[in-house]
């Protein structure tokens, strides 16, 4: 476990050292970014719409009953911004994108493609890891921002249309505006960046260390997804604690 953490950190450092090659790799970055965004946006839209809706549906009637209907927009807004959008989207990315990265690099390792690169004096970190890590660092914050907006919309739809809540769109909107500040958005974006870094590194690490046949690729993918999710939840607590301390 400690060895794996050390190796993942070492991979992170190697990738950072290869960052000057980023300009040369921009076509690859754009290609991976497009694939990642394309694979995540529809699913993130569906998830976020229902998460926002469920939040409003669960809390709305209780808050209205206690005369706190003006809090609904704020509650949905803050929950989506600070916690649900970054964590849920990161878990979605770990499952869809992280697993795909591990499977692709794992099969490249098993079928001698990475060995072929090494014999051609092409290092796999700048050639394979750097573009994928950069792409996920760009894609996840974008998906999170999108998820926040769609989540707010889901919350608004339920708050306005549900008879047990029945607040106006203006009331929802003004609660949202008054309850959300820059730090809330910054927290969500910082989390998404940290999660993207962790998903990218964990999935590339497991892909590159795959040994054996097709079964080993499957094992690497499982390990990669599970470890990414654990990393997401642990770091989520750490970042939240940091912001609580700062505020």
């Amino acid at each position: 476990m400690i060895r794996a953490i050390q190796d993942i950190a070492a991979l992170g450092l190697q990738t950072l050292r290869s960052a000057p090659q980023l300009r040369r790799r921009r076509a690859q970055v754009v290609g991976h970014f497009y694939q990642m965004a394309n694979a995540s946006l529809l699913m993130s839209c569906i998830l976020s719409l229902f998460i926002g809706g469920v939040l409003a549906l669960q809390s709305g009637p209780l808050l209205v009953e206690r005369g706190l209907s003006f809090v609904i927009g704020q509650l949905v807004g803050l929950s989506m911004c600070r916690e649900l959008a970054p964590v849920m989207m990161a878990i979605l990315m770990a499952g869809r994108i992280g697993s795909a990265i591990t499977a692709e690099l794992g099969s490249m390792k098993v079928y001698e493609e990475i060995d072929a690169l090494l014999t051609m004096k092409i290092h796999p970190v700048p050639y394979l890891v750097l573009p994928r890590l950069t792409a996920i660092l760009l894609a996840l914050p974008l998906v999170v921002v999108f998820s926040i907006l769609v989540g707010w919309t889901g919350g608004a739809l339920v708050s306005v249309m549900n008879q047990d809540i029945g607040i106006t769109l203006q009331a929802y909107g003004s609660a949202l505006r008054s309850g959300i500040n820059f730090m809330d958005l910054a927290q969500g974006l910082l989390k998404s960046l940290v999660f993207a870094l962790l998903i990218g590194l964990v999935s590339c690490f497991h892909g590159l260390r795959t040994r054996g046949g097709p079964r080993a690729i499957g094992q690497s993918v499982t390990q990669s997804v599970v470890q990414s999710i654990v990393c997401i939840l642990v770091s989520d607590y750490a970042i939240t604690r940091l912001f609580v301390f700062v505020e």
Partner: protein
Amino acid sequence: MKPPPNKGVELQIHDLHRSFGHNSVLRGISLTIPAGCVFVIMGSSGSGKSVLLRHMVGLEAPDQGTILFDGVSILDAQAMAQIELAIVFQHGGLLHSLSVGENIGLYLTETLGLPPREVNDRVNQAIEQVGLSVTQDKHKLPADLSGGMKKRVAIARALAINPGILFYDEPTSELDPITAVTIGRQIRQLNQRHGTTSIVVTHDRDLALGIGDQIAFMTQGTLSRPQSPAELSQTTELAVQDFLQAGTREDYQIDSNPS
């Protein structure tokens, strides 16, 4: 633009040892492969041939021993940068996300940083040298190619590097006998045309005897003295004799009265 011809490179190995856990895979391998020759390392599956090859190309580090290319140690990264080596992997090792042309030009664009026009010329030249079609095959993905074509593309990719020494790992495995002969003829032809030292690791005895200038037989991590195909056919070593003579019709007969 045609690259300058690369003269063959001499390879020397001294006392190479490698173990994986308690399993000793290479047990003191020493050999000298002269520049420009086709050298075949033959042996049965699991004898350590591929592990030896991975050491020769620097993909594995030995526990003990040295590997020298024209007197330069494989560990001397700066000096090794001047020596172009290439390998044709058993399964081709082609990048599946890249087209045939991109695979062949990968070293030229990524490592040498050549301009696109020169890369294109050299890629086309390599494609033609292995008997593929620039118009039909260059833009195909590896998934669309047959086993034999994949091997040819892998050879073309190695040729584009213009290597001084070229390694082949089981170049005829998974191929039908006719395609295997075509590949073998191509290895020989390329060696004669460019003078590149060619090292072929195989368990295909027809290929070994057909193309090898010198053949060494590998058994349980040790390598026999290199011999010419004619000498090898006359050998008195039992393991080599068994290997060379296996596969007659009698070998397939099932004993109907086992004692």
